[in-house]
């Protein structure tokens, strides 16, 4: 009986392909939307994680305040001496780069570009894993002398200089004229989608004295700490925390007013955010699948009316009401399964193209495909039931008389 219903249902679908196509269009789009959203979300999560991890597993960040976000702003910043103390006093630390970051507009001739000026030490380039495309880092002497020299990120070079060679040129940053001594190799998009190459690196003292906009500024916004190979990040985090607590005068029992995180923790924090976003997008897309199901019900209901005569014929030659019910149910199920399959194929293609365009990894998760497929089947049965029941309840005599 089931096989019979399937035979009849497939014949009916084949008989009117356009109607079938319109019926499943909603499911196709719904399933595709769910799968695309989730795979792109997973790709983004993967991308964030791998980019944070690419900073190096032995990288540790120290940030004033606890937790990410504006609440951290109230805690006092670090000092250069903090960085020096950590570098000298914690055995597992290879190098420390204190960072002072100031937003600034870089100007060269007629061109200008809003970017971030980073004041730091010479160690920064090795700690952050920068390679040089051209020129050199600033020297220890230039650092000590707070010289107006800078190293440009790739984006700043292309925005200000185009194809010209920037090394030796002078640019202006907030009224400070400084000489370009080097160009960093491009790194690409950062973990949060920001452009890592839109940066101008200067000696810390230069930024503090001449760009920070406040006399006697000695603040450091954060410290990047690179641990020695083979040293456990946990131990370094602990030791750095101890040094900073001591220097900031935090007594035993009091909470830290700063955070020390290793890259794994940062990656976890960021990827949990993108995961939440993924589920959110998936849920929104699932609503469209639901709408697709309602579309099936809508068209099937119309189609039952349109096919009243056909139902009458079937019943007059001996089809049982439950066979008519089964036929319409199987039709809805077959249609929505086809819609689910087409949607998945569509999603694979579209998410591949989008992943390429967005520069994130292309991830096929069989689970989400299965879930979307099963969901489309459920949609078929649930939304096919009402029209099928209506068809089964028709009276053969009335149905045959229907014009």
């Amino acid at each position, binding site marked *: *009986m089931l096989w*019979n219903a399937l*035979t*009849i249902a497939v*014949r009916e679908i084949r*008989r*009117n392909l356009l109607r079938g196509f319109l019926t499943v269009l909603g499911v196709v789009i719904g399933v595709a939307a769910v799968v695309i959203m989730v795979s792109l979300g997973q790709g983004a999560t993967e991308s964030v994680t791998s980019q944070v991890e690419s900073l190096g597993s032995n990288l540790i960040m120290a940030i004033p305040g606890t937790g990410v976000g504006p609440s951290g702003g109230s805690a006092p910043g670090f000092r250069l001496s903090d960085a020096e103390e950590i570098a000298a006093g914690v055995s597992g630390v290879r190098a420390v780069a204190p960072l002072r970051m100031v937003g600034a507009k870089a100007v060269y001739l007629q061109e200008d570009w809003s970017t971030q000026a980073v004041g730091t030490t010479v160690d920064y380039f090795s700690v952050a894993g920068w390679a040089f495309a051209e020129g050199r880092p600033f020297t220890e002497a230039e650092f000590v002398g707070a010289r107006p020299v800078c190293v440009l990120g790739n984006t700043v070079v292309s925005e200000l200089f185009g194809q010209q060679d920037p090394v030796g040129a002078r640019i202006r940053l907030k009224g400070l004229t400084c000489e370009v001594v080097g160009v960093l190799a491009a790194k690409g998009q950062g973990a949060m989608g920001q452009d890592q190459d839109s940066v101008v690196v200067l000696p810390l003292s230069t930024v503090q004295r001449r760009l920070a906009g406040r006399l006697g500024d000695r603040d450091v916004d954060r410290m990047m700490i690179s641990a020695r190979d083979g040293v456990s990040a946990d131990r370094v985090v602990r030791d750095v925390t101890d040094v900073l607590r001591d220097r900031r005068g935090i007594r035993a029992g009091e909470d830290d007013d700063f955070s020390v995180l290793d890259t794994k923790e940062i990656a976890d924090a960021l990827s949990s955010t993108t995961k939440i976003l993924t589920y959110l997008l998936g849920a929104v897309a699932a609503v469209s699948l639901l709408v697709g199901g309602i579309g099936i019900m809508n068209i099937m209901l119309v189609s039952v009316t349109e096919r009243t*005569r*056909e139902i*009458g*014929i*079937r*019943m*007059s*030659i*001996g*089809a*049982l*009401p*439950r*066979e008519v019910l089964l036929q319409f149910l199987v039709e809805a199920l077959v249609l929505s399964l086809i819609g689910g399959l087409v949607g998945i194929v569509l999603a694979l293609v579209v998410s591949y193209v989008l992943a390429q365009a967005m520069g994130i990894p292309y991830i096929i998760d069989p689970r989400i495909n299965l879930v979307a497929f099963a969901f489309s089947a459920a949609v078929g049965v649930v939304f096919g039931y009402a029209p099928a029941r209506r068809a089964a309840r028709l009276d*053969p*005599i009335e149905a*045959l008389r229907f014009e």
Partner: protein
Amino acid sequence: MTSRAPIIQLRDVTKTYGAGSTAFRALNGIDLDIKAGEFVAIMGSSGSGKSTLMNILGCLDSPTSGRYLFAGCAVEGLSKEQRALIRRHYLGFVFQGYNLLARTSALENVELPLLYRGMSRGERREQARRALDAVGLLPWRHHASNELSGGQQQRVAVARAIATSPRVLFADEPTGNLDTKVSREVMELITDLNRTQGITAVMVTHEPEMAGYADRIVTVVDGTIASDSRRRGDGVESEVA
């Protein structure tokens, strides 16, 4: 012929539509016996109750009161499902409007009742081809029903009705949509099936010429049987006792 038991026996069958003051009695105490192998025409003007009678005979509807024995079994109180099963296994239908599935080949149309009988694919094909051959439409088996002429469509409908080798073939105004020439062809086909294959046929018509093909003419007036005459082999009509 007289020795055979009737396949259809109606006893004091009534059918009332509606209830209370708006009730309409379409059939008013019908007694009718139809024997296996007979070709019966039911005549009557529109509103006479002949279609209602046909629907009850064809197990599409059930009577309000009275008894209906089909092949000796009482079927008057059967449920919708049970009546559907009687139709599936014992009855064949031909309608005025052909009632074929559109955009479906002649062969698939004829296969339809066999499909509901749960017949295997090969058997189904074979039996459908035989039925189409019997109505002379085997060469048109792959044509969609809407590509066929009215006469051809009605012959496909006859093939569909006889494909299951039914005990009774019901034809409701089978020539109503056809011109005279094609009507005669269809009537000759039904007569031929009745004569050569012994299929019991019950036909509703209002055209005396078409009724003339039958062995027996039952005339319904106002829900009762007004006359019941049998035509002998010699062509002389006589009242049924």
